[in-house]
């Protein structure tokens, strides 16, 4: 599971480097948002979705119980 999560995160990180949109402004979203901007807006929204799944799959469950437990003398 851990490897799969790391691969997904790395793949998503790589998508940030959208060299294919580098030199073009079109197509505009809503007639005025250049593609280099709306791609990254979409990327940020996608990151929220990814975080939703990450919280479900990789939440450090044991950490809270460990923190709440009294430290040994």
């Amino acid at each position, binding site marked *: 599971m851990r490897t799969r999560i790391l691969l997904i995160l790395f793949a*998503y990180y790589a998508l*940030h480097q959208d060299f294919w949109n*580098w030199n073009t*402004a079109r197509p505009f979203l809503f007639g005025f948002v250049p593609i*280099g901007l709306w791609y*990254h807006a979409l990327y*940020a929204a996608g990151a929220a979705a990814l975080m939703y799944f990450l919280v479900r799959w990789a939440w450090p469950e044991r950490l*809270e119980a*460990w923190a709440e437990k009294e430290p040994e003398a």
Partner: protein
Amino acid sequence: MTPTLFVLAYLAIVLYIGIFAFRQSRGQAEDYFLAGRSLGPWVFVLSLFGTHMTAFAILGSSGHAFNFGIVTFGLMASSSAIVVPICLLFIGTRLWAVGKKFGHITPVQIFRDRWECGHIGTLIFFLQAALLVPYIIIGVMGGGTTLSVISGGLIPFWAGGLLVAAVVMSYVFFGGMRGTAWVNAFQTALFLTFGMIAVAVIGNGMGGFSSIAERMLSDAKSAHLLTREKYSPLAFLSYTFNPLSAIAFPHIAIFCMTAKKMTQFKKTVMLYPLCILLIWLPCVLLGVFANQAMEIPALAAKIDLKALTGRPVVADDVMLQLLSHFAPEWLAGMLGAGIMAAVMASDSQILALSTMFTEDIFAFYGARERFGQKAQVATGRLFIVLVTAFAYFTALNVKASIFDLAVQFSFAGFSAMMPLYVGALFWKGSTKWGALASTVWVAGCTIALFFAARGFTLFGLSPVVPMTLGSVFLLWSVSLVTPKPSASTVNRYFSV
């Protein structure tokens, strides 16, 4: 005049929130500096985000977009949308847990305990404090700029900065973490509400963004602002290292320890990218399209200067200029208050510095035992006054833009300190000597950057990349060959 009154009324409200929080406090150090580790889920989400979104995000981003175009969003916003929540999920929760279990309030306390060191922790404190001050300065600069532009020059920059610094200092002074968190939550809600309204109103006032975009694209002088053709992909990649600074910022790390329950991080992690999107997209769009606002004399002068010299200009006020010109007075006032909300996020940095000083220096060197907790809180408050005064007088003489000041000093330095957190919290083999080597490296690089030319790169990479990789390498290599902390300490931290 009306917008100024709105902003002044807003300042009065946040001051009241700080005083109200003061009435709720119990006078204990943990209560003042960490709100008794009792912040509820929504205050935690909004406040943590508000703590991270500063004058840099609002004024700095639009100013940078005015000069460099849409690349600004990819450089800082979308990279933060992925990197910051990941850091919060894995490192923030671990900081919360360690703080809760061992009663730590600051990162340096964790480092000292984890690596069994004293003076190395003090060195880390000084480096963190030195890197945080530029960030506080940009808050004062943002406050001065906002009030000066919103009032049409009626309130000069020095007076605006002074007023904002005084208000921030007062509610931090009285309210501590509780006051700061409540004000930040209020501020974030305000700006998230008004950011999109600002885009709609200004777009309408400028005659519609579609025609502006077409005009910009057909003009060779401005077409490049709608693409990234003048920006190197390697420099763009470098910027993804900057958001690593988020978790290493002492104000964010300390804030992670204020949550009542660890589950409160869940909402924050999931909503963080959306909040980034809602704040940065309007700022970048408006910054880019301000290049067509020739009817505003202040912007026309900047556009002409840019065309004449071919160099970027200081443009932190572009969004405010658009707002003052295109929005009706009452709305400009509301939106100005919203902008002021984000600009004033320097409160948490001032409080963090005060917390660090009283815990990592005052208490660590025995003054708490001698003078008691009340004296510690009083010292923290005195420190707040001194830091704010220093930031104010420095801000009056700074010539750099908000974006440059933040990226060159704060972001690069704190990103390079992030490996210390990972080493302390996740790697049993890390040692205090590795931490020392890494800290000295970051300090040396920061001093070198101070003397380097603006926009300095190494093989096309921004300084943040070699600084961070060097920090990782030194922490790792020196730790391998130096003695480890005792087994009991390592077991305490890794018994989870």
